[in-house]
């Protein structure tokens, strides 16, 4: 069985059964139209058709704070390298966030490999979810082709109204359907309904910025000295929120934390942000991205230019989190539109052309 369906009335029971012997993580409403991935025991609180969570699921692959080693520092330098990990099932991961995880996978499996990340990754099962409509006006997932799934999940759910259409992509996914024992094989009628949803999706999702996806790195190459960065630099508060919430920002700091005995302690890493001025400052006092404009440019180039050269893919998933969270109202779609305008790269048919 590669395609199955799950009746909506069974969702609650599905999560309950899953949660019986494993930790299940899903998006949950936190009020004020904010959502967060957290542990759930049943399906009651799971919020599927909403804007992306405050923090992306990267927090399970690359925790905000992670112990790399415990140490004993008295006479000699003794350390015990560790990885903190647990078996997890992530449920309700939107296609944009699946793309984000794929980006991180590339970064951390590139040599020298990050074994901590890879071990955690091996313990996580992913159940994806496809949005049938835009979550809000900040999203630009169509532009980067992450509005539809491109693999990276064990199971994938699509809302067919009274049931979920389910793609079983891996053996791990299949085992879940077997174990929970609530799924039925998909019928030709279900496949028809799926085709209709997809058709409708093609009508709803259109390129949010009038530029051809493939030409974006070129557009950025030409824009290095653009005034757009000056403008962003004037507005940006350098708070680092945009990089924290971004599913593909992975920069970190490594620090020691001694215990009270001052002999033992741990070496840990935590998320860091290229938007802090000290981020690229060296001992002589020289800071290599002193201006906020240069740091904002760096953030954008790390999404649309550099990863294209290294990993042949854009590192923006179009999730819109950076724009939603920014106190200075710096908006990714707006920035891209300005660049398109400035570089004369407007292509109104862009959305269709790349189908």
């Amino acid at each position: 069985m590669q395609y199955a369906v799950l009746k909506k009335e069974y969702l609650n029971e599905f999560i309950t059964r899953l949660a019986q012997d494993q930790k299940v993580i899903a998006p949950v409403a936190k009020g004020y139209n904010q959502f967060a991935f957290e542990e759930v025991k049943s399906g009651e609180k799971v919020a599927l058709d909403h804007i992306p969570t405050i923090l992306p699921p990267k927090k399970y692959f690359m925790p905000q704070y992670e112990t790399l080693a415990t140490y004993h520092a008295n006479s000699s330098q003794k350390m015990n390298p560790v990885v903190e990990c647990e078996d997890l099932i992530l449920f309700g991961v939107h296609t944009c966030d699946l793309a984000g995880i794929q980006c991180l996978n590339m970064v951390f499996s590139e040599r020298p490999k990050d074994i901590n990340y890879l071990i955690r990754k091996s313990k996580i099962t992913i159940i994806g979810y496809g949005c049938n409509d835009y979550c809000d006006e900040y999203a630009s997932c169509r532009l980067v082709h992450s509005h539809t799934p491109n693999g990276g999940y064990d199971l994938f759910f699509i809302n067919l109204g009274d049931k979920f259409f389910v793609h079983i992509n891996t053996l791990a996914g299949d085992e879940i359907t077997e174990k929970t024992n609530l799924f039925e094989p998909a019928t030709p009628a279900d496949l028809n309904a799926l085709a209709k949803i997809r058709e409708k999706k093609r009508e709803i999702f259109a390129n949010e910025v009038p530029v051809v996806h493939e030409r974006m790195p070129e557009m950025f190459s030409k824009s290095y000295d653009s005034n757009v960065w000056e403008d962003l630099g004037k507005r940006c508060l350098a708070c680092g929120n945009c990089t924290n919430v971004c599913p593909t920002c992975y920069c970190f700091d490594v620090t020691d934390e001694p215990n009270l005995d001052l002999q033992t302690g741990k070496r840990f890493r935590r998320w860091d942000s290229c938007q802090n001025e000290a981020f690229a400052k060296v001992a002589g006092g020289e800071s290599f991205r002193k201006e906020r404009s240069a740091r904002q440019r760096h953030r954008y180039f790390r999404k649309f230019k550099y990863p294209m050269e290294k990993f042949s893919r854009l590192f923006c998933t179009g999730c819109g989190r950076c724009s939603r969270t920014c106190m200075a109202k710096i908006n990714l779609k707006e920035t891209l539109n300005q660049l398109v305008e400035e570089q004369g790269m407007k292509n109104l048919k862009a959305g269709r052309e790349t189908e």
Partner: protein
Amino acid sequence: MKKLTLKDSEYEIKKGKILRVRKMTAIETFFEIALPGGESLDHEPGQFVEVSLFGVGEAPISVTSSPTKRGSFELAVRNVGKVTGALHKLKEGDEVGIRGPFGKGFPVRIFEGNDLLCVAGGLGIVPLRSLINYVIDNRRDFGKVEILLGCKTPKDMLFNEEVDEWNKRLDVKLNCTVDKADPDWKGNVGLITSLIPGINLKPERTFAVVVGPPIMYKFVIKELLKKEIPERHILVSLERHMKCGLGKCGHCQINNFYCCQDGPVFSYDKIKNIPEAL
């Protein structure tokens, strides 16, 4: 949450035993370090290690000894903050953590058979010393060797005795300059760039290796280009903030390059169009 012990962590240190400590100047100290069982560090000139002190942290430090020196390796550290400050308190017999070596060093094999011009400003002599001693220990494999040293005042000169020895060798040419002299100083006074025009070199068979503070590069490279040294024959070593040495943490990123993996040594033709490099 489970905590599993890792056998293959990139963050694991090797224990380095400090064999010798020597104060070089008011703020710089020299360390000779051996790995357990005399294991070789197996570095290339120009590579660096992460030096770790638990409870304090890690700092990237260039290996200043040549790989031809076996059994131990050497570092020269300037006290500027937390980790470097804590290192300065260590004594002979103490242990430090060592990770690495990391990065791309000087392309010594490509240098073979060619002339070398080494230009060191300030602390730049620390990584360059590794190359210079490597070349001296394999002297017949290289052409002419000329060294230009520059620092603020005579008191800031590092490796004085060794520099004197280089100076005495008939197969090495050496020139020093200081920004500000004192009464005993017999060498040149002025910026290091002022020494370059007078040099007699064959540009097509000369490799110029430049290491110094960020501000120095632009001016020195300009002089070297005037001498018609090809762009890919000019090598620089860039310093950036680094946390992992593994091309991940992002601190050392220079546009699309990660200094710790793609560098710290770069040829000028690779970086001349990289706006954040120089």
